[in-house]
């Protein structure tokens, strides 16, 4: 009888510890939902459609528009436009651009809009891929895309599927 009691006690202890730990984890997740941890992944037309407020942190994905790339006098600040063909957004970034950064190529940047509607990027992510086409940065509807570079990239991306 005593053995049974101890066994129950032990199980109770283990279970309560596990429950406490899981509850802590859930709490953590709930907290994170309200914080900076969660960022939306948007393309320029989403940004326009949702009228994202200035200062809200999000990830911007799309293609670097051909002919939009320029470097400022200081040699460190870059301006370029990210497009999904339906809409275009100006981006400003200070830092070293990743190796795969190229006009007409897919890019993912992280940051927030300033009050002038320019996306101030804190990071620019390079995507690397066995076939050198970053999926997920392509415009959602490749058909409506008329951008020549984007079209070529989209063809390359979708031909493999």
């Amino acid at each position, binding site marked *: 009888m005593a*053995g049974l009691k*101890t*066994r129950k006690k*032990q199980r109770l*202890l*283990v279970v309560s*510890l*596990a429950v406490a*730990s*899981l509850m*802590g*984890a859930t709490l*953590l*997740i709930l*907290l*994170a939902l309200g*914080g*900076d*941890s*969660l*960022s*939306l*992944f*948007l393309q320029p037309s*989403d940004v326009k459609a949702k009228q994202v407020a200035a200062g809200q942190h999000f*990830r911007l994905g799309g293609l670097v528009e051909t002919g939009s790339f320029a*470097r400022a006098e*200081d*040699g*460190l600040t870059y301006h370029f436009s990210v497009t999904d063909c339906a809409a275009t957004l100006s981006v400003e970034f*200070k*830092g*070293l*651009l*990743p*190796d*795969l950064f190229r006009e007409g190529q897919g890019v*993912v940047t992280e940051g927030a809009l300033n009050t002038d509607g320019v996306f101030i990027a804190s*990071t620019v*992510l*390079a*995507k*690397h*891929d*066995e*076939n*050198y086409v*970053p*999926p*997920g940065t392509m415009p959602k509807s490749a058909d409506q895309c008329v951008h020549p570079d984007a079209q070529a990239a989209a063809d390359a991306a979708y031909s*493999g*599927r």
Partner: protein
Amino acid sequence: MAGELGHFSLILALIFALIGATVPHIGAARGDARLMALGDRSVFAQFLMAISAFSALTYAFITSDFSVVNVATNSHTLKPMLYKVSGVWGNHEGSLLFWVLILTLFGALVSWRGQKLPLQFRSRVLAVQSLLVVGFLMFILFTSNPFLRLDPAPLEGNGLNPLLQDPGLAFHPPMLYLGYVGLSIAFSFAVAALLEGEVTPLWARWVRPWALLAWVFLTGGIALGSWWAYYELGWGGWWFWDPVENASFMPWLAAAALLHSAIVVEKRDALKSWTILLAIVAFSLSLLGTFLVRSGVVNSVHAFATDPARGIFILAFLGIVVGGSMALYAWRAPKMAPSGLFGVVSRESALVVNNIFLSTFAAVVLVGTLYPLFVEAFGAGQITVGPPFFEYAAAVLMSPLIVALGVGPLLAWKRGKVSRAFQIVVPALVVALVAGTVLVWRTSGGYVMTAIGFGLAIWLLASVFLEIASRIKLWQAPGKAWARFAKITRAQWGMSLAHAGLGVILLGVTISEAFTTEDLRVMAPGDTATVAGYDFTFEGVAPVAGPNFTAVRGFFTVRGGGETLTTLTPEDRVYTNPVMNTTEAGIYPLIAGDLYAVIGEAAGAGRWSVRLYFKPMISALWLGALMMMIGGILSLSDRRLRIGLPTGKKKVQAITRGAA
């Protein structure tokens, strides 16, 4: 010719695996020893066929046989030999073939080393392992055949992604795969134990080395990957909480939990049901990782080439493996004999605490990784879960784990005394508190998390030392301490070294995250920039030519404390096949930290944009990982694990008793 031979070998391997996955079960059910023994022959046959297929693909890569699609898309004649060979597993199809090779190798090892295991149990294990081989072979043959031909054959191949042409990354995938696949053995043992209806200490004795081996390889694979990211990607970071990184981290956490809980099964015959579950979960997480990486369902910076058909196949396979084993668990686990008892304060309890925190952490990482998928599935748009979430989770869940880790090894099995353990670790507590306080004071406050992390690291390192000191009675009987010191077993050294390794990693993470100095600027030749007290003088750039790339190499002379320390030579490479830029950071490790320079692009008038860092104690990350690996290997090499397997008839009867 070699291609067809490889393809044919794969088909033969599938047939052998199908036989091996079914017949031994029939044999076990009927008690037919001849059918059961077929399992052993089957795994050897599978292994031979896998070697044959893998050699065929390697041969195609080495000889640059571009009539094979896989070689044409991933190789190039001018590529150095190392990368021709590593190109075999550097692509989707080849990596799966490598996976199968390891899967069959481990199956054959279990058969070879496991002749002392009861035949019925061994045949079940090998049959489950063969079933996994069937799944992967079907995946290869139906969706990702590496031996498809290309007609007409191109004259030259596309080349391997230059980012992957790196010694660090050449061995990163195979290490991870050895880890993932090592967990398949734990899985097969767990499922076999459920089928046989009994878990014995002997079972744990078998599972633990495999879990340990898998964990060692996962540790190495993850460390190599983060090291590669650190020096090759040039953004100074080493871990991004990217889905693909998490995919390797979750099995690591589960394997760490498993190798600890298996100790409890082995020594105390307790936590049996939980350990079985953990073995299933650990391998499921490995499969899930493969699914995440190969299907492209989550938006990752790694973004491997993806294909929905492959994703669906892996998802189905994942469903069968996880669903099937979980259903079996739900059905059979309650029927197993109850586990041994232990007190609230005991080594067992400490290991339970370890398991709870490790598995909760794995669960939180899983939620964070899959959350974007659910959000997208419910049409709420695309989101990403960023590093702050995971960092917070790590801080909250790992802090109590590390506190417990300092005390756990000091507690006795079954019923320990807190007071005794506490007496031993009081100095560690004092040192840790002092260290944390000094850090806050020296940096004029504001670094609460850093102080906690630093204090925890010191606490862990000090308590590992005190544990060894108390084991050899350094204070009570110093005269005989050396004799006791020499008697410490390899398993104990392994534990201490691995735990200390965790402390060293924590130290590196805390210090490098908090005190890295970074300077982004444009420099002309002759300019000097001072970063964290080190003077970086830009000497200019020079063109460099490699075997399959050209580069711009920058030269930075670094002076500190009045003397010239080194010249850093970061490069900006342009590979020719395919045309692509890569960054090679210039790194010079000092004991205090790493000097790190990256060169950007020409900014006109001879100026270049550069990024300079001083990263204090960052080498501790890789040193700590190495300590963990050596600790694991020491523990694996312990004499008791190698020859301690019971051979007596009594014990063999004990393990088969449940099935009879």
